[in-house]
């Protein structure tokens, strides 16, 4: 197993899944794999990020400050040293 070298910043509302950790480590060559790895470490987390196998509309994920929607979404390539930030959308009606 390769050393986890991808930093994932977790928003307050998802920290109950990570035992309150703000920043966790994960591994994976693309976002889909990183999310699987996060789910392995923190069960239940994937369901907050995905719906029917796709990224949830109102969760924003950024890789090195770029919106992952412009990097291929779940297929976005992730490499060692990358920083991923998750932020729930601020929205309503």
């Amino acid at each position: 197993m390769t050393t986890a070298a991808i930093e994932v910043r977790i928003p307050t509302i998802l920290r109950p899944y990570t035992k309150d950790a703000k920043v966790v480590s994960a591994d994976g060559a693309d976002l889909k794999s990183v999310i699987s790895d996060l789910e392995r470490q923190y069960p239940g987390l994937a369901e907050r990020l995905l719906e029917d196998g796709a990224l949830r509309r109102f969760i924003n994920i950024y890789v090195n400050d770029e919106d992952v929607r412009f990097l291929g979404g779940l297929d976005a390539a992730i490499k060692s040293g990358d920083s991923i930030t998750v932020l729930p959308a601020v929205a309503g009606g």
Partner: protein
Amino acid sequence: MSLTISRAIVDQILQQSRNEYPDEACGVILGPIGAGTPVRLKPMINAAHSPTFYEFDAKDLLALYREVDDKDEEIVVIYHSHTETEAYPSRTDIAYAGEPGAHYVLVSTREEIAPATEFRSYRIIDGIVTEEPVTILD
């Protein structure tokens, strides 16, 4: 639980809401971490440009969180206006309330109560809405 806020900030939010009508207006008020005091008003662009929906642009949102981190602040208030309905969180507001520590302020500028406006504050945690009193300081 309650919200204490300056009259100046309340007035700016009400004016922004009138200015952006018929679209929903939105923004945040920031304050020093841990103090719970809404000190710095930051109106945000409603990327949805809609009379019935608001959303911060994803890039603006990231920039906001970075700025807040840099300044050792936290988001104390998230506010938006309801243009035709009362200043109470809608099902959508509740579904998307992703900042459990924030006070959610709703403003209503609906025609039927004009020129009066409503300014109300709530906590929205785990899908439960609790209204809280608002103290406005002159």
